[in-house]
């Protein structure tokens, strides 16, 4: 088990290094940070001073090494745009994005899985057909359009829910949460539906397809032939066997939710990392962009690791093949 985690972490290192290299290349070669930071009026001496301060005169590998060393300490320098430490900016914005992503993922899982199971079990009921039609809409409409439609209906016409922002937040240490106030919770509803809808329909379709597949297997027929009840057959035997593929996709989707929160955050002016990223792109604020990229890569790598661990818990065949691999070393 421990060896397995360790090997996965080792495998993640090259991935992270590659992303770091891209981030760094952006830093060093995209745009001209010196002229951006200096503005219009400067002397040559000022320019040289800044180049030295930023370490831009040193060789590539030294610069890259320093970049990685700093990145490991969460140090990405100052935002060009806001002249504040990038780490601080991100830490400020992260809770908003994470809470939004969490709610979106929860909606996608807790609505998508039951809908998938239902449509898999009762293929021909009218409700299943309704779900499938609905899922087509979810997959085909672009996120920003869904967001705008929701705003139109629930904010503009009905006036029930706010159309932008996080509402009131409560500060818990450095973490700002919207979960503890009424307006914070209300503000979460539309953006998390918008963000989670695509994943919801995807998970529903995946669970449905897997259920249909598993229900045809011999071990399900045999479970019925042993006289097990529908509950045990459907949930104990069938659903559990759909979990491995569902975990894979759901895991990747969770990463996607965090990464692609950008659109939703823009539509709802949600003060998260995605919005920060978009604003940074507009201002060529390279340090923020680089840090954001690294962070998203880290999120994906972590989720992959968790997905692998879940496999390990769900599927005994993987458990023993990993055990065998370990024994063989």
């Amino acid at each position, binding site marked *: 088990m421990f060896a397995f985690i360790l090997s996965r972490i080792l495998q993640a290192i090259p991935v992270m290094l590659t992303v770091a290299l891209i981030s760094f290349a952006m830093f060093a070669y995209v745009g001209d940070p010196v002229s951006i930071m200096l503005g219009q009026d400067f002397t040559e001496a000022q320019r040289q001073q800044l180049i030295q301060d930023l370490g831009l005169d040193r060789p590539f590998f030294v610069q890259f090494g320093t970049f990685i060393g700093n990145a490991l300490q969460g140090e990405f320098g100052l935002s060009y745009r806001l002249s504040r430490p990038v780490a601080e900016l991100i830490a400020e914005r992260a809770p908003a994005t994470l809470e939004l992503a969490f709610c979106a993922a929860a909606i996608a899982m807790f609505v998508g899985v039951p809908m998938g199971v239902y449509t898999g079990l009762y293929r021909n009921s009218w409700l299943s057909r309704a779900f499938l039609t609905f899922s087509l809409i979810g997959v085909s409409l672009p996120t920003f359009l869904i967001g705008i439609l929701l705003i139109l209906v629930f904010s503009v016409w009905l006036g029930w829910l706010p159309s932008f922002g996080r509402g009131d937040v409560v500060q818990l240490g450095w973490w700002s949460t919207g979960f503890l106030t009424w307006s914070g919770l209300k503000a979460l509803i539309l953006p998390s539906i918008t963000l989670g809808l695509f994943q919801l329909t995807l998970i529903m379709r995946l669970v449905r397809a897997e259920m249909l597949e598993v229900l045809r297997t011999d*071990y399900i027929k045999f479970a*019925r*032939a042993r*006289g097990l009840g529908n509950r045990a057959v459907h949930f104990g035997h069938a659903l559990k066997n759909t979990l491995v593929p569902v975990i894979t996709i759901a895991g990747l989707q969770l990463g996607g939710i965090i990464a692609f929160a950008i659109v939703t955050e823009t539509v709802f002016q949600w003060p998260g990392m995605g919005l920060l990223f978009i604003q940074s792109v507009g201002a060529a604020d390279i340090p923020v962009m680089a840090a954001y990229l690294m962070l998203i890569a880290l999120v994906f790598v972590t989720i992959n690791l968790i997905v692998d661990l879940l496999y390990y818990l769900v599927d005994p065949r993987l458990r023993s093949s990993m055990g065998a691999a370990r024994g063989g070393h």
Partner: protein
Amino acid sequence: MAAPILSTPSHSRDGGPILEVRNLRVEFPTRRGVLTALDDVSFDIAPGEVLGVVGESGAGKSMTGAAIIGLLEPPGRIAGGQILLNGRRIDNLPYEQMRRIRGKEIGAIFQDPLTTLNPLYTVGRQLTETMQTHLDISDREARQRAIGWLEMVGIPAAAQRVDSYPHEFSGGMRQRVVIALALCAEPKLIVADEPTTALDVSIQAQIIALLKRLAREKGTAMMLVTHDMGVIAETADRVAVMYAGCIAEIGPVREVVKAPKHPYSEGLMASIPPLDRKVDHLAGIEGAMPRLSAIPKGCAFNTRCPHVFDRCRHERPELLETGTTLATCWLYDPASEKQVPELLKDD
């Protein structure tokens, strides 16, 4: 109905048969019309008796088993006839009532042990789950019995193996587990559909021996579908030969194997390597079994039968007394214009 003569005299007893299949008809509605997968299938199984079922691929052997345990794949459905278990009709029971019969009163064994067990649960869990579905026993009791069953089907170190997953067993061992699962709620009837076909030849005999021993010890009756005439000869009390959704011949195993009365059984027995039977000229049967959509009018076998005569092309034969067995063949109707050929007469 021709009921009384379906079980051979040696097996009739006071209690009556455990299973009676009466004129069973199974249909599959398809886009191009209704296919009849089983047509007028009738047989009995006495308590403790082993009925072998043989026939070419697609003859309807598995379909018969599925109809008995009430698990026909939709859109397949029982369109006629009756199935009685201990004299009680079970072919028209609601799902929930039939569910309680499956596993408890009728056990099932499937063909491929590699796919029959749920890969995500230990064999012990699958056993306890089955027993606790049907029997009112505690977790501890169920576990004890699970270990007992694994021992009974010959799994070494059962007390440790009870917590192993299916993939940790070989094919033969897995089929032993499947047998334990089929028997663990002590049903009085087992439907075993080619229980050894997927196994290594070297293991087949062991599994059959195990099945035979357990069936005898527990007094369990069995419907044993197999392609292996050797297994039939050795295990079955009676044998039913199926052809194109019908019973061609049914009777005591010795008679059907050694002196088949139906032209199809004759060909089938001739096409297998002889054990002690003299085979002169009939080497298999010409042609192939018709698809369900192309079963001929009259006798289903009339396109391939070497003894076919006029009546066979118009009228469907019923199960007729041949002296030793019952066969669906007009040769055995004294009213037919044709006589039983020498070849099919008793030696």
